[in-house]
């Protein structure tokens, strides 16, 4: 009697050949093209994007009559990028989240497993087919992204980088779907779990960030700049500015004091936001020349601000618009600090790639045969 081992795979589990990949991908794509009304779905997708892009243009043309057309172009481009990313993340799970357990329940997975295809070829072939389908959706979105780009205000580098990252993010979503479809036996479970995973990264982590913010908020002594009347005097005991003026007609000035104040140490938890696909896209795309009021630029600026944490000098004067000139030095210093930071997106991209790779590896392991253990409720064939 031979010894029983839990890991029966041959050394070929992870081996991949071009022929094997192509065989699986072609099989998947053929079935997909023939069994779904994919032309209809692509047309609906195009109409949806077209309608929303047109509405954006109409809205900004009316609102932004006074503004620079380039700024409006950058704003519209950013919004379309996020629209494509959100809708693409909604569609992509449907492309891969049933690919393994669906085949299993249809009784066709074992047919592939008993051939000389390796588990890696089966998993990656399915992933490739799902990704190519997702890229078809991206290709249909291209004219609308191009429209936003042609409005001006978007550097060509930003256009190319966002497009590339959109493709990568859709690949990650497809990989998550593939992984769940290999883990669960029911196709509905894998679809739901895929949506939950994607929503967690896209929405859950930012929510978690804001929920954790009070926990990293402390009371510390800091230099604070306040707008006070010229005659005001700092009272260290009461921790307030005292003024003996009754009518308060002295001019307001910006004055420093050393006082207790609440400081949110966002630099301790900023990384919760780094993996978010929307943040990755925003952080990776080069800034346009303008004031950076578009959604991509402002998310990039804000996340880097959170990463720096509260400034050493808390500047409440900055809230007073008319005093802006006085604080220009402070603002500039902060901007220099932001620019000195390493880019945030490589972390985020790495997190996403790790997520995708992990789920793909799980799928490959689950496709190994002969299986010692089976997922609950599944039949082999």
């Amino acid at each position, binding site marked *: *009697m031979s010894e029983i081992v839990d890991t029966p795979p041959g050394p070929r589990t992870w081996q991949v050949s071009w022929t094997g990949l192509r*065989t699986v991908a072609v099989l998947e794509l053929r079935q997909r093209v023939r069994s779904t009304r994919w032309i209809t779905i692509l047309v609906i997708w195009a109409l949806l994007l077209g309608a929303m892009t047109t509405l954006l243009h109409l809205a900004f043309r009316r609102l932004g009559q006074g503004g620079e057309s380039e700024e409006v172009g950058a704003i519209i481009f950013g919004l379309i990028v996020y629209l494509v990313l959100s809708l693409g993340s909604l569609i992509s799970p449907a492309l891969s989240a049933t690919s393994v357990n669906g085949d299993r329940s249809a009784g066709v997975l074992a047919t592939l497993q008993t051939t*000389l295809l390796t588990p890696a070829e089966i998993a990656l072939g399915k992933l490739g087919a799902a990704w190519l389908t997702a890229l078809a959706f991206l290709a249909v979105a291209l004219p609308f992204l191009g429209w936003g780009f042609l409005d001006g205000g978007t550097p060509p580098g930003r256009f190319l980088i966002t497009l590339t990252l959109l493709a990568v993010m859709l690949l990650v979503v497809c990989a998550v779907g593939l992984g769940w479809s290999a883990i669960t036996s029911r196709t509905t479970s894998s679809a739901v779990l895929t949506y939950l995973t994607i929503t967690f990264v896209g929405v859950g982590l930012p929510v978690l960030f804001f929920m954790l913010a009070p926990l990293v908020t402390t009371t510390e002594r800091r230099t604070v700049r306040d707008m006070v009347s010229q005659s005001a005097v700092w009272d260290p005991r009461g921790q307030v500015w005292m003024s003996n003026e009754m009518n308060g007609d002295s001019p307001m000035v910006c004055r420093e004091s050393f006082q207790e104040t609440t400081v949110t140490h966002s630099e301790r938890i900023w990384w919760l936001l780094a993996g978010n696909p929307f943040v990755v896209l925003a952080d990776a795309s080069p800034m346009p020349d303008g004031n950076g009021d578009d959604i991509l630029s402002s998310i990039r600026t804000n996340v880097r601000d959170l990463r720096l944490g509260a400034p050493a000098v808390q500047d409440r004067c900055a809230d007073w618009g008319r005093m802006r000139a006085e604080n220009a030095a402070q603002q500039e210093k902060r901007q220099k600090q932001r620019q000195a930071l390493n880019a945030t997106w490589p972390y985020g991209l790495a997190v996403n790639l790790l997520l995708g790779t992990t789920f793909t590896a799980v799928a490959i392991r689950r496709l190994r*045969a*002969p*299986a010692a253990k089976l997922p609950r409720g599944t039949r*082999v*064939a």
Partner: protein
Amino acid sequence: MDYALIESNDLDAGTGVVARGVRRTFGDVVAVDSMDLDVPPGRVTALVGPNGSGKTTLLLVLATLLAPDAGTVTVAGADPRTDPWEVRRRTGWMPDAFGTWETLTCREVLETVAAAYRLPRAGIRARVDELLELVHLADLADRPTQVLSRGQKQRLGLARALVHSPAVLLLDEPASGLDPRSRIELRGIVRDLATAGAAVLVSSHVLAELDTLADRAVFVSGGCTVSVRDLDVASAGPRTWTVRALDAGALERALDALGRVHGDPGVDGAVELELTGDDDAASLLSALVHDDVPVVSLRPSGGVLEQAYLSLTKERQ
């Protein structure tokens, strides 16, 4: 063996299938308790047993899909657990629960499987044509498989199992859903493969369909091998025959006179009795004719397998 391509398959089944003490459980359920099985090359072995006796699970172990909990298995000279690739290269498996890529045509299904077995690209088209011809699906080659009847799907499944010219063939309930003509053709294909040297295992619980197909039978029940019979020997051994005459009374009197133990005549006047092999049957017939009994027919009642199966269950009672 080269991983990339199979140049030709020499039908070298090695020792065929040799399984000893195979056990496989699913949680608390013991699907296969302890099975021994030999499928020698050049012969067709039937795996016979009632529903739920563990036939399909054993086939899944042989087809490299399930790892056994205990026991040793060799298929075409390789261990499915440690070297599944070698086993797959030489083994064709036709599952019972039948799934097929519904939107693909018959030709595309076979081409896909051929590519998955890494057959040389140049030869795939000819091989697929040959197989479609073999299972009589050539006229349906370019129709999607969802329009096929159950029997046609079974035939496609057989072609799929044969794509890479396997030396070991595992057929799980191959004849279910087949019309009589297709059954006869299946028998022809399977017998030809065995003659060419393949080791063939056919599972079924329908005994009649295995009778003319198999050389040997392995009986399983409750996850255990209970008996192994050589069917040539079985047909030479004692078995029940049915004899019918125009005059049931004359038949009974003649049999009594010959000292033959027999049952009571049935509604049609047929009488059952035990005979030992064909020689015994021939001598009884000539004796009856000599006694002027108007004999209409003398034939074995039921198939060899059916009788073997029944005698087996009798032994166990």
